[in-house]
């Protein structure tokens, strides 16, 4: 018999990502799946992350309260609600398009400033 996690694997989901700026990596702390009228949070630490994710949020643009009991709509809009520098949610996506498909922990990358294209043409 398959476990619930195995059943959910491959389904469209939202990644909730914590940025560890000082340590230099970002990691998926939870994956959120729409299940009909319900929301399922897959996380290694449910005591910590479920209360943070499964709460009512207020949409900034409309002032509308978005609640976990709204099921799929809650999951679809989670990226509008959790979008901080330290914690954010991705948009709902298929497993094939998952930016964290290969690994749940991604290191920060050194950035070289881009040179202005117009200047380079002269």
């Amino acid at each position, binding site marked *: 018999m398959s476990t619930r996690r195995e059943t959910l694997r491959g389904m469209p989901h939202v990644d909730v*990502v*914590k*940025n560890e*700026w*000082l340590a*230099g990596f*970002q990691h998926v702390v939870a994956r959120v799946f729409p299940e009909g009228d319900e929301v399922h949070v897959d996380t290694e630490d449910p005591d*910590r992350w479920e*209360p*943070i994710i499964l*709460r*009512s*949020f*207020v949409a*900034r643009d409309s*002032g509308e*309260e978005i609640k976990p009991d709204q099921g799929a709509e809650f999951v679809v809009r989670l990226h509008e*609600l*959790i*979008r*901080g*520098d*330290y*914690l*954010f949610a*991705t948009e709902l996506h298929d497993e094939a398009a998952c*930016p*964290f498909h290969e690994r749940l922990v*991604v290191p*920060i*990358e*050194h*950035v*070289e*400033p*881009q*040179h*202005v294209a117009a*200047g380079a043409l002269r």
Partner: protein
Amino acid sequence: MPEAELDELERYLANAEILDVAAFSQTTAHHSYRLILEGGVAVLAKPADTAPEGVIMCRREAAAWVLARALGWPDLVSTTVMRVITSPSSGEEVETSVQVIWPDYLPDAEVALFSDADIWRAAVFDAIVGHADRGGHNWLAVPGSSRSPHLKLVDHGYAFPEATSPPSSTFYELRRGQELPDAVSDSLGDFVARRSGLEHLHELLPSAAADAVFERAETLLSSSVLEIS
């Protein structure tokens, strides 16, 4: 902390040489970068050209720090300054907010973890800044592993409106309609009486937005009740 030390920290953030710029591959709409400054301090940088309305959003980040400091609550918001850096995305010289990164944090932790004093200060702070985006998120518990962490407020890009209306804030809603505690009233009274930070807020914000901060503070102080309508 003595004001001179905070002044010194602000000068350091504004002038220290940048040794490294780094970013995460996955981000929110407003791209942030980690800068490592000479001496080894890591800071979060938000260049103005990485978001729509980026200039005012960055300045609001710095204004939140100015206000926290002016209220005598410099522990509530990360020290933040404006400086010009070479934008990692465009290569142009752009205004950028630069703020100290909190260590060991739990984002959006349950509010029951925080002290009544911290919740009150956050509620009043959000009322004064008119925060439009603290409904359920945009705060940290520091240290994240502590059973009695301190509350830190983050992300102020959607604060400081010119109009007066109730903020969208979890902390404000928790204390809305209640009488202000003495400690909060005292901080508010000093802030209003001294017009602390007024000049600096006017440098960062449109005049109407800076004036609205003091109008909201005076409203709270005169009624002694947490209610913005």
